[in-house]
Each structure stands twice: as C-alpha cells, then as structure tokens.
C-alpha cells in the first residue's frame, strides 16, 4: 500500500472519528448519569438526519443552518423521551429497560419507514463534491466541515460538563445519586436535562452527516452499534473515553477499509469491542472500581 493511500485513510479515519465522537458522547452522557443504555440512540440520529434533509429539500436550508433548528427539536425529543418513557423505565429491572429502548428503536424505525419510505435520501450541495488538497491527501469539504463542527461542539460540551453548575450537578448525580439527592439536587431535573443534552447533540450530528451519507429508516441501527463499541472501548460514562474510542474506531474502520473488503472492514469495530471487553472491560480510560 502506498503512503498516499495510508495517509488518506488516516485523515479520513480521524475525521470520521470526530463525528462518531459527537454521536457517542450523547450515549455515554445518558449512561453516566442514569445508568441506562439507550438502544434507540441511533434512531434519534436518523430523525435529525431526516430533519436536515427535509429542511434542505423543501425549504432549501443549508445543513449548517439546519443545525440551529434540529438541535432544539432533538432536545425536545430528549425531554419527551425522559418524561414519556425513561422516567418509568428507571423503575423496572435492567432487562426490561433494554426491552423498552429496543422496542422504541423498532418503533421509530418502522414509523420512519411508513412516513418517509425506505428510499435513500441525500443532501447534495455544490460543495459536496469539492475537495481540498493537503499534499497527497484530498479531504472532502462536507467531511471536513462535519469533523470541525464536531470538535467545536465536543469542546463546548466538555466546558458545560466541567465548568458550569449544571455540569457539576450532572457529575454529582453520576457519582452518587443518593448523595446528590441529599445535597438538594433535583434528580428528576438533572435526568431530564441530561437526556435533552444527550439527544440534543444528535441534532448537530444529523444535519452534518446527511450531506455525506444517505439517510434511510435503518441508518440509525448501524450508528447505535458503533456508538456502543465506542463508549465501551473508551469506558462507559467517560467523556474523554468516548472521544478516544471514537478516534480508534474511526481509524480502525478506515484503515481496515483500505486493506480488506468492505464487509471485513465492517466487522473490525466489533472485533475491537470484543478485545477491549475481554482485556479491559471497564474501558480504556476508566479505572476499575474496587
């Protein structure tokens, strides 16, 4: 393999990794605070992608502007998800929680199939095919935009979690639910807003992605699985871990794609997941609890 192909795969992998990071951070945030795994996470990404697509197809809105509309809508979805379903799911056994979010994922997929049909949709802009040459490597403009926007948002999220009072209450609840409750933190409120932020990040990711990847009702399932891999590789509930995991998965996928067939490359993230689960089940960036 020539150096140029390797570099191309490397840059492509890192840029994909940044977008994956944005998707996975929402999942890990919700798990960190509520200890619930949302199997319908990818379906909310699918909704955000459709929002981006229809705003462009019906009103000609640029996906970058569509973020401003999609993010509040997805935050409302998150609040609705908490109030309508998750609030009750927290009271039932773990396997029932799994069943509830799996059921939601199936429901949203097939509702989307009913409303939008199974056709692939894509936003095509003049800049979609434009590329920027960096030495031997050509970077597609939509990819670059998505990568940069993801990094900016990840920085903003990091600051929210580590530098604001809301972030402090979130971290407190994630460390000790009862302790936080005794200190006067309203658990329900923190849960609701964590869900809003966790799902809201998808409102940024969705419109960015629909200009480089086809959206169809089943696109979310793939990203849910990838997001699982990422957060487990990095460590469930760890912000930095999700970012590291996303970069590793993005790179592994893109490098494997340069060497092997597409199908084998698709299995690489799962091989990685098995390896990490067996060697370091708590994830790369989380210390094992005593």
């Amino acid at each position: 393999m020539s150096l140029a192909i390797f570099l191309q795969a490397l840059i492509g992998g890192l840029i994909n990794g940044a977008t994956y990071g944005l998707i996975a951070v929402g999942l890990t945030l919700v798990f960190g605070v509520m200890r619930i795994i949302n199997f319908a996470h990818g379906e909310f990404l699918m909704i955000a992608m459709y929002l981006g697509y229809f705003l462009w197809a019906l009103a000609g809105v640029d996906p970058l502007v569509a973020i401003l509309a999609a993010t509040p809508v997805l935050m409302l979805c998150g609040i609705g998800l908490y109030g309508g379903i998750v609030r009750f799911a927290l009271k039932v056994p773990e396997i029932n929680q799994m069943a509830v979010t799996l059921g939601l994922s199936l429901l949203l997929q097939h509702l989307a199939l009913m409303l939008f049909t199974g056709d692939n949709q894509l936003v095509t802009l003049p800049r979609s095919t434009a590329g920027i040459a960096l030495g031997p490597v050509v970077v597609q403009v939509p990819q670059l935009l998505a990568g940069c926007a993801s990094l900016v948002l990840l920085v903003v999220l990091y600051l929210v979690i580590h530098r604001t009072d809301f972030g402090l209450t979130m971290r407190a609840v994630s460390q000790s639910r009862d302790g936080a409750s005794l200190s006067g933190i309203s658990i329900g409120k923190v849960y609701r807003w964590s869900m809003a932020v966790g799902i809201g990040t998808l409102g940024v990711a969705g419109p960015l992605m629909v200009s480089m990847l086809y959206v169809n009702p089943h696109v979310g399932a793939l990203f849910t699985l990838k997001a699982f891999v990422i957060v487990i590789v990095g460590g469930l509930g760890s912000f930095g871990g999700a970012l590291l995991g996303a970069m590793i998965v993005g790179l592994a996928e893109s490098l494997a794609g340069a060497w092997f067939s597409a199908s084998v490359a698709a299995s690489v993230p799962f091989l990685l997941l098995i390896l990490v689960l067996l060697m370091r089940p708590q994830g790369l960036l989380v210390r094992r609890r005593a």
Partner: protein
Amino acid sequence: MRDSKSLFISIALATLGFLAALSDRYLMDIFVLTCFYGTLAVSWNLMAGMTGLVSLGHALFVGIGAYSVAWGYSVHGWPPYVTWPMAVLLSVAAAAVIGALCFRYGLRGYFFSIATLAFSEVAFYVVSATNALGRSDGLMLLSADDPVLHLQFFEKWPYGLIILVILAATLWLGHALLRSRTGYYWRALRDNEEAAETLGVNARALKMRAFLISAAISGLCGAFYANYVAFVDPRSVLGVDLSIQMLVFSIIGGMSQLWGPLLGAALLVPVSDFLRGLTAIQGSNVIFYATLLIVLALALPQGIAGWVARRGRRRAAASLAQGERA
C-alpha cells in the same frame, strides 16, 4: 406438581395447534413459525430469564446451525443425520469459546449482552464476505434425488411434526433442568450472584452449562430452519433482528416461567402475520409489537406469564386462608 401441570398443558396445547393446522397449508406455516420462534425463545430464556444472562447474539447459534445444514448439503450433499448433529456440535463449540472468554473475564449485565452482540455481528460480516457460504446472497438448498432422506417434503405437516417434537423435547428438558439442582443454582445466580457464590455455587461452570444447553437448542432450531425454508442468508439467520425477537417474545410472554416465551411467540407470530395481511402499510406489524413491547415491559415487568402465575398463587393463598378459617 403444579409445575408439571403447566408442562403438560403447554405440550397439549401445541399438539392441539398442530392438529388444527393440518387442514390448511397457510395455517401449518404459521404453526411451524410459531413453534420455531417459541422454541428459540424458550431456549434463550433458559439463559436470560432463569440464569440472568441476557444474550443479544443468539442469532449466532441459529446461524451456525442453519449454515451447517445448508453448507453440508449444497457443497457435499450430506443428509440431515450428519448435518443436524454437526449443527448442534458446532453451536455448542462456539458457545464454549464465547462463554469461556466472557465468564473468564467476569462480564455481566449489559457487558455480557453487548459482547454476545459483537460476536454475532462479527459472524454476520465474516459470513457475508465468505465465498464458500454464498456471501450475502446466501445458500439455496436445491431439491434432492431422495427427498425424504433430506427432509424435503411437498406438504408442510411433516415439518410441523418435527418442530412440535423439538418444542416438546425442549420444554421437557427445560422443565427437568429447572427442577434439578442445576435449575435452583441458576436462579440463585440470577437473583444474587455474590450470595450464591458465597454458598459454594460454582458460578462459572453453571453459567457455562446454561449457555451450552441454550446454544445447542438454538443450533438445532437453525438446522430445522434451513431444511424448512431451503434458503439461508446472513440477514435471516445471523441478523440482530432475530436475536432481538427472542427477547421480544420472552419479555411479552414473561420470563419467570418456562412457558412464558412460548406464549409470547404464540400470541405475536400469528397476530403479526395477520396484521401484515390486513394492511398495505409497510411494517405495521412491527409498529404493533414494538408498542406492545414498550407498554408491557413498563406495565407488566414480569410479562403475561408472571401476571398469570402471580394471580394463581394469590388464589391458592386465598383458598388456603379460607380453608383455615372454616
């Protein structure tokens, strides 16, 4: 004795279903699919509901079973009396490797579920890329010169009979296991692993036993599926959807009873087929059972079977109390 009663009732009802379906090919098809999913869900629940190991990758074993038959037949012309035992053995071997890794490193809860999911996804993509297994196009089982030997029947009822026997044997085996020492240990592990281990229960060996038995039955079901449908592809036998279906049937039917998952399949398979025929709307059957899943998982955490069993216990207690008063 109450337990034996429910075993006999479920087998008798399944036999009645078979007799009722004899009249019609379409009904027999529904019956076969109900028993197929029912057996799978019961075997899945031996792990999930009884031992507390929620697998999200059980399609892997169905896939191994189905591909053993499809590959053995279409490449070598092997008959079922060679390929079916091979299907079971290979499924058990795969479960032994996965189980050894997962239990050695103490994966529990969500982590075990996601590890099994990852194994089955790897198999999905590897099979989709393997030429000998027909890649993502799958393998077709063409008609044989000696159809009966290769379990190729024009009528559907022989398949109904075979799957009925498999179902009855699974129920009987599950019943016997749950009343044995092993079954009590399983439920002790499910309820509190640390406490059970403190009392001397060998958690790793017992979890492994549940995993192997469950995988063997799923592999057998996969072998049956390949002979019944005569076509196997990664999407139908190795997909995540199949693994999730076992969970759906078990949650709705109820995981606390052996027959709960069978009840779930018996309710959902016919209804979902009926809905598919009723409306032209794509996926209306999935919308129905996904909604049912969400509502039941929240409102009846023990499923329909758990609700029935609790009512039964309450009635028994009430009649006992009345007897004492009298």
